[in-house]
């Protein structure tokens, strides 16, 4: 007997609301800018910003990619223990990141490097975690960008709970939009199999929490293709929980921004949660420890290269005359400066001392733990005296 597994059937997508309305458009997903750099119309979503915003997005994508490339290189040189590259996912991240407004809060997974940069997180602070010199060393409240989360799916519940808190704090449904906020929760395609993520959908629907679930379906969970997690398009998952859902071209920064703005806006207005599947691709390895040649074909990688999220925006903006070579050169220079800062900053990151960590276990240090610390300090002092 063979346990067969077919890939997902061809599906007429797209926006599906729990009320059952199905906006069928015979297309794979919402797309506003083709891989060739051409604007296309969508019958529901429009990109409401001018070229300056698109250029800003391009800048974020280029800087994000540079950061990622530098970190990957630093790991190869032994300067980081590990790095999870985001190559190929820049549009999904920058487009959604650009949709974040005033009071919104972000709950990331561990790969949202571009969103982190947009939220003002210092890339050197981010490297600390992967260099092993810190746990997660940024002020999540100041940046409204919560801690990276490494146990798959867990943060989805924190996001919903936080959104429930914003609801209670009156940040939803106010006539003055400036007083409203919502939560943007990131996770991957693999994460959707975790019980926690399903429970997050249950709670979000039950309380109509102001949260947007943003799934980067990069087609892989380490070596497992999306079909292991779902045999039907992933955006459909949320519908059964009573949550509106959209699939968007995750390599199209315009479409991603438009869809995420729509979803966040709904949430802020008190219209409840939305689930977004950004259909994208992890062009690199899962992490620097991974070897994708073991489990996927080169042709697949090549196919996706043609859909690069950055190239199409550059083509478009150059074609429009919104940017020129000088603009691109300046951006390159900015990226190079970022690279230098990262390279030099990383190796200069100070090593921590175990002493610094005892105080973080509890708000009030238990006496027995203080005893352990004192014994440790005395023990260490013994070595120093010896030497």
């Amino acid at each position: 007997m063979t346990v067969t597994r077919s890939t997902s059937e061809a599906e007429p997508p797209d926006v599906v609301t729990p009320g059952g309305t199905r906006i069928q458009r015979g297309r794979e997903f919402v797309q506003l800018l083709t891989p060739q750099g051409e604007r296309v119309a969508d019958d529901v979503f429009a990109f409401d910003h001018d070229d300056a915003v698109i250029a800003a997005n391009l800048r974020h994508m280029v800087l994000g990619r540079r950061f990622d490339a530098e970190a990957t290189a630093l790991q190869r040189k032994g300067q980081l223990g590990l790095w999870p590259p985001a190559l190929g996912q820049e549009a999904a991240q920058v487009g959604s990141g650009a949709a974040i407004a005033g009071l919104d809060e972000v709950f990331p997974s561990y790969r949202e490097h571009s969103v982190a940069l947009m939220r003002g997180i210092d890339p050197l602070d981010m490297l600390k975690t992967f260099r092993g010199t810190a746990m997660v060393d940024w002020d999540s409240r100041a940046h409204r960008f919560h801690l990276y989360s490494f146990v798959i799916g867990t943060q989805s519940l924190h996001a919903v709970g936080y959104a429930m808190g914003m609801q209670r704090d009156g940040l939803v449904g106010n006539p003055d939009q400036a007083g409203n906020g919502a939560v943007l929760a990131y996770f991957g395609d693999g994460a959707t199999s975790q019980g926690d993520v399903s429970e997050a959908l249950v709670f979000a629907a039950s309380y109509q929490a102001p949260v947007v679930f943003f799934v980067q379906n990069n087609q892989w969970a380490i070596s497992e293709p999306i079909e292991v997690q779902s045999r039907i398009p992933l955006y459909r998952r949320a519908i059964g929980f009573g949550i509106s859902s959209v699939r968007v071209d995750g390599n199209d920064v315009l479409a991603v921004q438009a869809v995420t703005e729509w979803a966040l806006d709904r949430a802020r207005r008190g219209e409840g949660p939305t689930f977004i599947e950004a259909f994208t691709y992890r062009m690199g390895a899962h992490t620097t420890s991974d070897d994708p040649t073991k489990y996927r074909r080169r042709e697949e990688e090549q196919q996706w290269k043609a859909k690069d999220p950055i190239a199409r925006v550059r083509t478009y903006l150059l074609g429009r005359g919104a940017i020129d070579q000088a603009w691109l050169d300046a951006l390159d220079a900015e990226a190079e400066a970022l690279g230098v800062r990262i390279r030099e900053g990383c190796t200069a990151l100070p090593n921590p001392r175990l002493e610094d960590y005892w105080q973080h276990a509890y708000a009030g240090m238990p006496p027995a733990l203080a005893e352990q610390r004192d014994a440790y300090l005395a023990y260490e002092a013994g070595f120093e005296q010896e030497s």
Partner: protein
Amino acid sequence: MGETMTMAKALNAGLRRALEADPKVLLAGEDIGKLGGVFRITEHLQRDFGPERVVDSPLAESGIVGTSLGLALRGYRPVVEIQFDGFVYPAFDQIVSQVSRMRFRSMGRLSVPMVIRIPYGGSIGAIEHHSESPEAYFAHTPGLVVVTPGTPLDAYWMIQQAIASDDPVVFLEPKRRYHEKGEVDLTEPPLALDAARVVLQGGDATLFTYGPLVKTCVEAALAASAEGRSIEVVDLRSLSPLDDAAIRASVERTGRAIVVHEAVRTLGIGAEVAARIQEGCFYTLEAPVLRVAAYDMPYPPSKVESAYLPDLDRILDAVDRSLAY
């Protein structure tokens, strides 16, 4: 000034006071609203504080704890009810990997002032999964505080102290004692949340216990005193951190120690208390630290639970064995 009330009522009163005192306090759990919880600990609290502060949650423990963690990050002080001890395990990852570590992960920037209330322990004639003693799992987990009241008075104060604490607290309620009455004297200032209490002084041996078996140990000590033995009873109250100073002080007085709990023996709290006592009081001990605990098997059918759990006789038997050294 004292009032006599059950532990259930004392907890209810303590929760009420916490809800009154701080608008950031909220309760979440299954059936805690209209029903007031299956043990009625939250009775009338939804009526009086509304469904946003006393929340009936979907039937998903990981979701309850995980969303409460999110609420805590937003500045709330969630008090979560797990309906029965045996249903806390679906939330284990959130408690042990997330709640307990958020402060550490954030390098001290974030607090999780959450209380996880768990009715625990056996001897109530229940079906399986309704009589568990999961305390050691949590006491082994750095970042969590684990406490358990043994009396209505402690219940009243400790629940408020737990809610006021900036650390996440696993708050274990000895359900078999819910309906027993005790004096709740509000004129006395409460003992610190992490302090053990000498319930009965004695000179020959110390019984260390907590929660459901405090009363049983006191009864055993009184029975022993009828035979001329002077047994001290220490209610640990806080299982993590342990009150080492109080534990050592008692052993220094009596020279003999017996740890008594409902959880299985292997790696129960008794293991840690014994390990610490033999280390801290090596020259004082006149007998090994003995343990009276449930046997190392799953909780059996309720008709045999009385043989499975420590009772007065087994405690006295251990006292005899200790004194025979």
